[in-house]
């Protein structure tokens, strides 16, 4: 078991008690990336990011450079940073917002410069009160330093950044719902096409949406160059990535590891990382990339943490959150709890998602409570089929956004991998795990 000696790209300051302050930031090389970027042409900055093959860290994994270049033909009025992080068991942006807000601000200004936008909104999950305060404080300092606002560092480039609080709705992480929310509306995902807000985004104008972690990578990439970034990782999955490790492991937390060079097993068992399953129990299943992702079992633990490598298992790395479930976990209960989340967070636009999520939740609860029937398993799968025809991966869609089609992932995983858990519930009239 080897954990690579990769540099820390976005978490280099996390160890410091005062990592969020401007003093510490400047002490640790802060704003050198931005100063360098301002000496380059915007095109050159964008090219550097494109060259780094920086995959979006919000979940979809779309290369940031490619997203930008789809747009750079005309003026782009808005850049929106997605800091809504609400995917269950995902808590990496939370860390970056609270612990290194200046790094985010610097990354945002670099992106704004590359895209030549004049106004940026950082949409931060409302529950992150401390994160909101830290980013606002950092922004105030950055404005005072001349790092944001008019004529940044004497370069002639100007940009305003506004911190915008969310108000508690998971769906607002979906980028078009986020834009609706930012426009002061209910967080309803927009119909697609257009598939990216690039064409018709905020206020109907071209808009780039990028995740907090994606932005936080930019200072390092510009400072150290794309080549240094692509030297890390392998194939499309370059650089390092934050993984939020949660559930029944000894050391849950956020870890920055080099992509592809590290496997699930490394992350969960390495003493410097997860430290193994809690109480030394056996591992039963792992949710590899947020609760939208189909689960993997112990046999797949040696898969490298890379976008394509994980995709080959018919699941995804998604938001980079990894939940460990040990041998004592009731899989009916786990599937129920995840479904309950989707039921509570469905925006309610699409019939299959709105009604299907609630129905699935009720069936799963019925089974968990010991009043299920064997036919319920077919009913579950059939209803899942109405949300994602074929219940395959990646899911086919009957809805506006992919929240709905994500619901079947955990249900189908639980039924396919642990059918016996369900049957025991049904036959014995209750949960054997108590």
């Amino acid at each position, binding site marked *: 078991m080897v954990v690579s000696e990769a540099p820390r790209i976005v978490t280099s300051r996390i160890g410091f008690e005062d990592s969020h302050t401007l003093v510490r930031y400047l002490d640790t090389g802060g704003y050198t990336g931005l100063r360098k970027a301002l000496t380059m042409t915007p095109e050159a900055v964008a090219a550097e990011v494109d060259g780094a093959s920086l995959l979006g860290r919000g979940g979809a994994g779309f290369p940031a450079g490619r997203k930008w270049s789809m747009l750079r033909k005309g003026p782009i009025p808005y850049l929106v940073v997605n800091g809504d992080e609400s995917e269950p068991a995902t808590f990496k942006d939370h860390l970056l917002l609270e612990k290194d807000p200046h790094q985010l601000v610097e990354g945002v200004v670099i992106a704004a410069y590359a895209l030549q936008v004049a106004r940026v909104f950082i949409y931060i999950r*409302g529950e*992150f009160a401390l994160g909101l305060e830290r980013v606002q404080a950092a922004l105030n300092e950055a404005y005072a330093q001349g790092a944001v606002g*008019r004529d940044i560092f004497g370069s002639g480039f100007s940009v305003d950044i506004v911190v915008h609080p969310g108000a508690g709705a998971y769906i607002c992480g979906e980028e078009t719902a986020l834009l609706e929310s930012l426009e*002061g509306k209910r967080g309803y995902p927009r119909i697609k096409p257009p598939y990216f807000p690039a064409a018709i985004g905020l206020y109907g104008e071209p808009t780039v949406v990028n995740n907090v972690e994606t932005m936080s990578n930019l200072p390092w990439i510009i400072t150290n160059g794309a080549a240094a970034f692509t030297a890390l990782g392998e194939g499309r999955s370059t650089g390092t990535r934050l993984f939020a490790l949660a559930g029944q492991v000894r050391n849950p937390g956020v870890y920055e590891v080099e992509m592809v060079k590290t496997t699930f097993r490394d992350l969960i068992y390495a003493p410097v990382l997860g430290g193994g399953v809690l109480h030394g129990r056996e591992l039963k299943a792992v949710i590899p990339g947020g609760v939208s992702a189909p689960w993997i079992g112990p046999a797949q633990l040696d898969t490298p943490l890379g976008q394509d490598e994980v995709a080959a298992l018919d699941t995804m790395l998604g938001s980079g959150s990894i939940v460990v479930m040990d041998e004592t976990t009731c899989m009916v209960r786990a599937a129920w709890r995840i479904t309950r989340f989707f039921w509570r967070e469905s925006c309610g636009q699409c019939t299959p998602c709105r009604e299907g999520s609630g129905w699935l939740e009720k069936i799963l609860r019925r089974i968990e409570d010991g009043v299920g029937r064997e036919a319920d398993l077919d009913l579950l799968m059939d209803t899942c089929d109405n949300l994602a025809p074929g219940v395959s991966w990646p899911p086919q869609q009957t809805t506006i956004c992919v929240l709905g089609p994500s619901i079947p992932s955990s249900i189908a995983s639980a039924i396919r991998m642990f059918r016996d858990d369900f049957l025991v519930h049904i036959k014995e009239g209750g949960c054997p795990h108590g």
Partner: protein
Amino acid sequence: MSHLSAETLGRARDLVALYPHRRSALIPLCHLAQEQDGWLRPEAMEEIAGLVGVTPAEVLGTASFYDMLHTEPVGTYVVAVCTNIACMLRGAYELLEHAEDHLGVRAGQTTADGVFTLEDAECLADCGRAPCLQVNHRFFGDVTPEGFETLVADLRRGALDGEVPHHGTLLRVRRTGGLQVEPSRVEAERAASAGAAAGRANQGGKG
């Protein structure tokens, strides 16, 4: 008569000024009204409607979409216990049950003395310290049943007043100064992009 205080109104106007379209300030203004009143009163919603140029029904319609905006009164402290998968795997439901017993209310209810509202929350993104909870959107991690009782006692006697502001308070750090980039530049860019948008007009789509 304005329901929002002069100070709140002043901050509200500053917020509206941050956006190219005033409706964008709707949610920040709802937070602000909650900061003033602890919850979102109908009078406040009507006033917000006027400030952002929509109908009161649209303010209610928008606000009621979001869990943090309470259109019914809540306690001084809103205690949100995460029960999502990561916390559940580490005893969140046991914690919630204990909280219910200890406070004498079910999740979703407010104690008779109006001090605590208990909520069964979705993932709060603090899974590294599961089970976790928030009080008025301030985090408390690795909460044991005993720890919960201590927390409640501390809150009751005001020992955490510095850490946990009253409900609705989100940003105690105010933005210093408004926007700096001249609107003309934004305007010019927007005009240019409008031209480009015309070319894309046929792409359709909502919004």
